[in-house]
């Protein structure tokens, strides 16, 4: 049984280390946004980076877990070693995992089956694991309503823009059926300040991609199968209003998937991971994830469904 609700399942280390800061702000390349580094404590603890990864998807271990796979680059091979710092359980069940260029880990709570270990007032708080000490602490509570009895979720997704060291965090906290109070926050990790936000949208899975030399944040919402795009400025702020870019409506087994994650592939295509989401706590095992791949057609300036 896999617990893979919103989680970045297999974040293999080492992640690509190159990070090119572009001087041409008008034309930015895909490679610009690959900068994640392994935390220093991983090696110090005797975990070989090539076949070690962090997970929040273990159904029997709450929180963040460091695992060593039997094979390099294959997290599905047997697990030979595991480690969990006591502080890694302090946020309850967690979902997103994101590493910055120093190896700091950002994560956030997300209830798993029930809210026993995920109190409503913590589900909209970013936690950080220090790359040196490995200690996890509350880092930044987001300024939006707590999750509620109707909606147990808060933070859903995270992506990182290397150029500007901006962490984008999506949240559906405080929303109910008639009031959409979710948001995307752009957080400058150096100053720990929110530098911009989009509100009134239950943003979920996000991804950053570069089309026509521009950096764009793509995101799905909890309310539809559409994927929105918003242009990002060189400071990492939102430069345009979000607009529907493409959709997974009608695709796949269910036809009304919501976006769990968006991956930017090396060939420039986008993979949208879709799943069923109805703001409830139906167990993740029931929520089959379906990948939908899209390529950018420069002639029509549109994302086209491939498979």
């Amino acid at each position, binding site marked *: 049984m896999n617990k893979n609700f919103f989680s970045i399942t297999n974040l293999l280390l080492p992640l690509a280390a190159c990070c090119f800061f572009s001087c041409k702000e008008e034309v930015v390349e895909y490679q610009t946004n690959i900068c994640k580094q392994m935390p220093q404590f991983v090696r110090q603890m005797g975990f070989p980076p090539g076949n070690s990864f962090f997970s929040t998807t273990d159904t029997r271990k709450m929180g963040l877990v460091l695992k060593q796979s039997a094979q390099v680059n294959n997290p599905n091979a047997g697990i030979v070693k595991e480690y969990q710092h006591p502080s890694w359980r302090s946020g309850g069940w967690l979902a997103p995992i994101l590493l910055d260029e120093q190896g700091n880990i950002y994560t956030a709570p997300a209830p798993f089956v029930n809210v*026993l270990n995920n109190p409503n007032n913590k589900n909209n708080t970013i936690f950080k694991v220090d790359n040196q000490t490995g200690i996890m602490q509350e880092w930044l509570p987001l300024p*939006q309503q707590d999750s509620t009895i*109707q909606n147990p979720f808060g933070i859903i997704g995270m992506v990182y823009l290397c150029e500007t060291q901006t962490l984008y965090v999506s949240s559906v906290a405080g929303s109910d059926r008639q009031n959409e109070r979710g948001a995307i926050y752009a957080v400058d990790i150096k100053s720990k300040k929110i530098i911009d936000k989009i*509100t009134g*949208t239950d943003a979920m899975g996000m991804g950053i991609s570069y089309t026509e030399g521009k950096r764009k944040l793509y995101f799905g919402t909890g309310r539809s199968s559409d994927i929105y795009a918003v242009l990002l400025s060189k400071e990492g702020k939102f430069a345009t209003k979000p607009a529907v870019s493409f959709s997974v409506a009608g695709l796949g087994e269910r036809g009304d998937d919501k976006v769990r994650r968006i991956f930017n592939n090396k060939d420039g295509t986008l993979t949208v991971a879709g799943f069923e989401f109805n703001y*409830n706590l139906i167990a993740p*095992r029931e929520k089959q994830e379906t990948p939908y791949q899209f390529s950018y057609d420069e002639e029509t300036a549109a994302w086209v469904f491939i498979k």
Partner: protein
Amino acid sequence: MKLKSSAALIFFTAIFFSCSNNNNTVTKHAPYNAEAVNAILLDVDSISNATEAISRAEKIKAVLQTSIPVLLCGDSLNNNQQTAQQLALADTVFTQYFFDPYSKKPFLNEVFGVYPARQSDMPMVKIAYNLPTTFKVEMYNYALNNTAIALVDVQQQKVLHRYVLPKTQPDVSGYLKKLAINIAIESKEVQNALGIKPTEKDALMASTQTALNRSRCERSKHLCVAPTFIKGDKALWAIVDLTDSRLVGIRWTNTGSTGPAEKLITERRLQDDKITSCYCEVEQTLKRNGWDMQYMLTSSDGLRISNVNFNGNPVLKSAKLVDWHVSYSGTDGFGYSDAVGCPYFSQSAVVAWEIPKIAELKNDNNETVGFVLEQVFRSEGWPTPCNYNYRQRYEFYNDGRFRTACASIGRGCGNTGTYRPVFRIAFAGNQNNFYQWQQNNWSQWQTEKWNEQTALSDYTAEGYMYKVGNNNNSYFIEPGKGQFGDGGRGDFSFLYVTKNAAGKDEGESDLPTIGPCCNTDYHQGPEKFIEPNAENITNSGLVVWYVAQLRNNDAKGQEYCWAESVVENGVYKTKTYPCFCGPMFIPVKK
């Protein structure tokens, strides 16, 4: 029915995005419209009376007796197409899923179409072929919900290539379209909605144009289509399940000529919108056999009843099912705390797909002795492993007795599971007292406390263990010992009594999960309202918490809290072994 909806007829979504602003925008979504509220969901066990559905059932029975359990394509085929169909059905790979590998029972298959192959169908074909004489045969397996494809060159009398697409449904044949329309127009729900009894011809007339929309049955994983009847500026969607040949439900939509297109009506949307709009967002009133009450589905406490009166006398303030704790003894600390409730915007792990049912309660002599109010909650994958099905049932008798009951119907993650449902039952009045039968006497509880029903527990001659109430209105409490004739084998319950202090929320509002999965003692959650300082409960408002302990069993002939899939008439059906539990409350005669 109380309904919050305004005059808004269209479910609109006004989206206002802000860019670099400092204010938090809230996007408003309209209340459900009348179409969602007035949608009709049919019982999952319902059957169609359409002549075509009945004759199809006979055809299915007959074909399942043969060695090739396949309904041949119902559309007219030319000679080449028929040859292609026969050649495909002789191919062992194409027909590999004809039988259940375990029971050896046949699965129902049907050829939906035989089409001239196109060049785009051929990339996987690595041998020579003649495209004009090559056909694509599409066959659907109703049990496995998969599609087998064969590319057949009739000139060569050869299957060139074949493959199976899991979780895929081919385009339905003309014959099946006709069947779906017939099931729809023969149903009284569609007839009542349209105001006429349409014939198939009527259905195709301009006044009630019928289109066959693709729909989805996401939860049952059945093949579904939606004959849609246009009337004025509205469309009536009738979702038809072709796997079970029955109507799933109907719903009107506004067609309109402007504005965004209406979202596809599917099984899940029909269910979720109906349940949310009618039972999660509003309370319903129920008056029957001297009883009156309100009821509604909660976010995480199951089906809640409130303000329950019998013959005008207050009985209960409320009753609800707070949690299901499921622990597996094979693995330390492994299990789940499941909340049950609404399907949309809730803290529930197992949700309602069907509306609450109200039915007559009959005794062994088939005499009506009261009525039941029942709700089913289920996982989509049930009865496959690690999926759950819970039933909550209130029984109300004409003589004033009532029972709060529930059952697990498996299947869970293994055969070492113990289910512990947590009931909260708040009695009306604020001058109640609580007693336990001990050593041939009623002994009063002075303070909040708990007790376990064991082999050594004392019962009155009638089987009563506790008594609750006041001078005007009291009830004996009879825990389950396997005596209620519903298959229950005894509750082995923990019972807690806590004070329901006025002006304080002692669990009356929707509760989040109150206990962990795997405690085997009295630490099931209600003790949090007792410890560390138990309050005096004499002459007080009282809450009775009742936690049964039900051990599942998958041994042949002894199944309990269990379910399994069996192949019946070519498709999977579920055999259930519920473990009902819950106490009976019997009025104390003055």
